[in-house]
């Protein structure tokens, strides 16, 4: 079974702090993704990566950055946390597949519920 592990289930930080969310997958997947999920807004893609040291912006990249130094690990960074970044953050991974966008299913971790005070 695919295992996507997020480092924390719950996290509380203060405004202005630099926050790191870590994600590790154990299935040698090429693609990794960071989403946030908010009531009424659904899942929104922040950043994704097709390969080590490679990143692409999703729908809502402002205020975030990412790092992928190793294939199995994808980190999301909140440069200066703000209260509107309080949310559930979900990491996912998938095989590369064929074509511009992979048609292989994304497998998700259990999420980090982040509160910014």
């Amino acid at each position: 079974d695919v295992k996507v592990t997020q480092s924390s289930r719950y996290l509380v930080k203060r405004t202005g702090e630099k926050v790191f969310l870590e994600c590790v997958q154990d299935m040698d997947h090429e693609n990794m993704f960071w989403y946030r999920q908010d009531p009424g807004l659904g899942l929104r893609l922040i950043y994704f990566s097709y390969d080590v040291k490679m990143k692409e912006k999703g729908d809502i990249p402002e205020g975030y950055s990412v790092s992928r130094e190793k294939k199995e690990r994808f980190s999301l960074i909140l440069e200066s946390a703000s209260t509107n970044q309080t949310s559930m953050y979900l990491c996912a991974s998938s095989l590369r597949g064929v074509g511009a966008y992979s048609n292989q299913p994304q497998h998700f971790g259990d999420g980090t519920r982040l509160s910014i005070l």
Partner: protein
Amino acid sequence: EDQVTQSPEALRLQEGESSSLNCSYTVSGLRGLFWYRQDPGKGPEFLFTLYSAGEEKEKERLKATLTKKESFLHITAPKPEDSATYLCAVVRNSGNTPLVFGKGTRLSVIA
């Protein structure tokens, strides 16, 4: 604009009462459709992939079907443990992001 719409938003069923959830989509170049189940406080759990119109997939009490404009998730004789939010997502050929997600159907099955 590419769009995925799920209906109904919420559905309440008695145990054993079969029903269907709908996922309609308008995307430029469908390359696949995924169904997920999400329990409260957890990440989405992958259920099915459908790649072409006419395709069907089954797993226990769930059956997913696909046409050129929509997908259905049929739930036969549901049990309380089937209560969850069900999400569909469409893979497209182009656009800012690979997947377009619907907002989900929240299913409650009452014993």
